[in-house]
């Protein structure tokens, strides 16, 4: 742990777990789909559901979906910004089961495609992305993250890793659909690979998402 983990970050209040953490989960979703969706639904669980209005969790979530950083004064004006971007949004209080009390499931619609990100704010502004499109994971958002939907075939992972030219910090792999023969591979990387496009050349890769870390710039 560094001194800089204890003092800072520069953020918009009032709460690191309810405002900052919420924004970071939503911003992860924004980066995942590479832009602002047309529609978004926020399913709020536990303490998020109980106190989201008083903690500005609602505004932080919208701000994150619009790609704002945690120190942007405009987080407070998120509702107006959403109007300007024609973003349709809704907040739904729900019970997501046995998960962290500050958990949100974000369902995003863009170009007629639906993606889902579920994340928990685990204190001090730290987050944990716990599910992407239904697949369990445990991502901090601090790494450059590569999410690959791939064919569930022999040698798929080997081929993917051959393309990824940088060090892998963490790896998750799960068969997601037996009938369609699909799997999801999630890699946390120490740096951004320069040759991500080459993944398209692989027969086993159906599509991929890349979520760069925010840590490099302040």
């Amino acid at each position: 742990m560094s001194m800089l983990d204890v003092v800072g970050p520069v953020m918009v209040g009032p709460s690191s777990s309810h405002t900052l953490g919420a924004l970071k989960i939503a911003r992860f979703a924004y980066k995942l789909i590479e832009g602002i969706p047309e529609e978004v639904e926020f399913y709020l669980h536990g303490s998020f559901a109980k106190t989201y209005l008083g903690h500005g969790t609602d505004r932080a979530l919208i701000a994150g979906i619009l790609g704002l950083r945690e120190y942007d004064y405009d987080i407070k004006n998120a509702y107006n910004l959403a109007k300007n971007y024609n973003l349709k949004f809704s907040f739904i209080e729900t019970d997501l089961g046995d998960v962290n009390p500050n958990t949100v499931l974000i369902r995003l619609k863009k170009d007629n495609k639906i993606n889902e990100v579920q994340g928990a704010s685990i204190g001090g502004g730290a987050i944990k992305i716990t599910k992407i499109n239904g697949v369990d994971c445990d991502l901090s958002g601090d790494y450059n993250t590569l999410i690959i939907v791939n064919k569930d075939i022999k040698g798929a992972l080997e081929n993917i890793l051959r393309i990824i030219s940088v060090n892998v910090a963490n790896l998750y792999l799960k068969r997601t659909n037996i009938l369609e023969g699909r799997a999801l591979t999630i890699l946390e990387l120490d740096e951004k690979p320069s040759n991500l496009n080459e993944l398209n050349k692989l027969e086993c890769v159906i599509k991929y998402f890349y979520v760069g870390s925010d840590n490099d710039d302040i």
Partner: protein
Amino acid sequence: MTFENLLEIWRETNIPFEEVILTEEMVETGMDPVIIKNNMKRLVEVMITEAEKNYGKKHESLTGLTGENAPKLLNYSPKLLSEFNYVATLTALSTAENNASMGRIVACPTAGSCGVVPAILYALKKVKNASFDDLVSSFIVAGAIGNVVAKKATISGAAGGCQAEIGTATAMASAALTYYFSKDAEKCGHAASLALKSLMGLVCDPVGGFVEIPCVKRNASAANVAIATAEMALSGIESVIPFDEVVDAMYRVGKMMHEDLRETGNGGIAVTPTAKKLVNDIKKRWI
């Protein structure tokens, strides 16, 4: 890392304490001291800018529970506080109310305790004409104190009660003030110990779970605890119990604290009849 480690290096090397801290940070995290210092500079910049901008300003918090405290103090001539205490108190209130109304703050160490350290830095600037570089040096010492608590114990109200948040912020502020006036690392340790001991046992009991009551005013009174304990340390008063041991004790108390008293809003001030009524009124307004 313990505070005693830092003190030992300081005693042996005679290098300014802030440099000892930056070097230790480099050893532990591999980060370039220049980068760490630049980051610390930016945080001080933000704290001072926001303190200036929000000084005595009226704020509208999301719940409406707080926001009018700083203007009251601004329009009042202090009868008891010194100019330094007055500016610090007003800054702490302004910063914490700015936080409650979704303004920009530096979590120091947390958002709920964001008023205490800027309070003393801004008072040093406004009342003592402190230079930016001196503020940064003092802030580095504050950062080291916070880091010791975070490593040995916790700075989270949910884990250790408000003693871990405001208590740590106050220890940081007290050490920073002491460093500004003495450059004496031993005295900084005494100041931090005296401050943390003063707030030990403090429960985290936000009304409705919102960072407003009693958080905002706690920031303001804690700034004065920081000033009083720094003054004691500067006069040569020592804490009999070393800082590391005080931190351990604080952690043990935090673990013994019932969950209701750790940021759940289920204990302490949060369950007084008035608090319950306020929360009900807010909820009605939202539905």
